[in-house]
């Protein structure tokens, strides 16, 4: 198994499912910025973007792919089953997580990075995500967490 991303031997491909919503609760653009910061680690990574909010996210994905070489697959919002085929679920949201997405990941044993901005403090389930607030705003910190999950990524 390869651990060095600079190796000349191809690193095994890694599939990340990304919550693609950019709206009142979805922060897909911040998640994509964190992925952007992963830079060269992304060479053999495939993004599976679920439920893109449309042009705004699609333009960001085209630019991301052009800049980093990361492969992008688009999925409709209802195609959450793809999470089971991925190695990681990445979502940045506001107020509370999407519990249904988390359930899909749990059922398939897929690792998750879910960061929440402004978690609802009157909702104990959401408040449990208080520890993720910093990385929900700090794309560099979030990128470090993503890199740690990538094949050959920093621990």
């Amino acid at each position, binding site marked *: 198994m390869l651990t060095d991303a600079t190796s000349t031997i191809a690193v095994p491909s890694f599939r990340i499912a990304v919550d693609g919503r950019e709206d009142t609760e979805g922060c897909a*653009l911040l998640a994509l*910025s964190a992925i*952007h910061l992963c830079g060269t680690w992304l060479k053999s990574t495939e993004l599976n973007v679920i439920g893109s909010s449309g042009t705004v996210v699609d*333009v960001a994905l085209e630019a991301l792919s052009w800049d980093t070489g990361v492969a992008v697959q688009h999925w409709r919002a209802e195609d959450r089953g793809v999470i089971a085929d991925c190695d990681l679920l990445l979502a940045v949201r506001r107020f509370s997580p999407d519990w249904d997405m988390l359930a899909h990941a749990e059922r398939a044993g897929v690792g998750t990075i879910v960061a929440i901005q402004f978690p609802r403090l009157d909702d104990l389930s959401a408040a449990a995500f208080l520890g993720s607030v910093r990385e929900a705003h700090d*794309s560099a910190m979030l990128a470090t967490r993503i890199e740690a999950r990538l094949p050959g990524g920093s621990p």
Partner: protein
Amino acid sequence: MIPQADRVVAIVAMAQSVHAARWVAMLRNSGLRIVVVPVLSAPNSPELEPCRLVRTRSEALTLAPGEVGVFDLSAISEEKARSIDVAKGYAWPGHPAYPEHFRPVPAHSIETALRWLKPDLVHSLEVQFAGYVTLEAKRRFGSDAFPPWLLSNWGSDVMLFRKLAAHAPIIDRVFQEIDAYWSECARDIGIARDLGYGGPAFDPMPASGGMSFSGLDASLPSTRKLLLIKGYHGWSGRGHHILSSLYMAAEHLRDYQVRVMFANDATTGLLREIADRTGLDVAPEPYALQHSHAMARLSRARMVVGLGISDGISTTLLEAMAVGAFPILANSSCACEWIRSGIDGFVVDPHDTRALADAIVTAASDNAMVDAAAPRNREVIARRWNPDINGPIVLAHYDELMSGRQARIRGRAE
């Protein structure tokens, strides 16, 4: 030499754009007959006044000194023009800033305008609207029958759009057909060369040509308590990233009033969350209807922050530099061609909210840095964004193109 008054320059542009109007303002007293050919159906910028509708070259030649012509689109049936575009297989590829059903003025209308005006030079201001439609007009004329064509690049025109599959092949064709290229950024000349463009590329100049400033506040930036934020969040803007940086930097910004321009409902909701959770004095700022009011507000700001995944110089940068507001922008603009990051402003990765937070904190706390930057930045603006300096440069290049001296190697205009 042909007298200027016998020369017609067709400026294919968004006639409602203040940038286009300012470019035209640099030229209106040159003696050239300037006719704006609008690419969008929208009211003209008030700064285009005095202007008059014209349809033909002979009408353009009757324009009074200082008067600008605007091509009269009502002379051509839009419905018929659109059906001709369809018949000729032309379809505009869209723009992420506009709804899917939005369409600019038909290519047939632009083609007809250019046939009637018989200009000595066609200058397209901006690529995705003016450039694309001029490309189609030139295709219908035939390359050899088309006047010399100068293309100006604004903002994200090639930097971002060359990355988009629907636009990349059109941009390639544009660069095969133009006779000269004028960008805002040296960066974009490199992109044009990478795309195979081998023709003349003039020294970069701001899209708006130049601005005259007078009577604005010259107070020391360190005495100012206002932080202005550009709130655009969408296909290029990353206003919500700035809000995340403000959230992280909040404890260092207690002495400041943070105001966010262009805040939509979603952005306003986030501002409330940040205010509630951090105690920061942050709120949306009403839109300034008049440019003089916007500049007066800017001149009260200690710093201005804008962030996007692609930009040109950014007018925000130039205006901030003109009034002593410390600029913080993304490195996806060509701000680094105007300021030294960490000295005259900050230029940060648009994807790195922590780096932006650090830059904001430094600009909020380092009085000596912001005070020292202000006079240097004002001097740069007085020298490089000055209509009295840039206007004659534009006229000289126009003259070269109309005289055929800058014709491309293939010698089309000789």
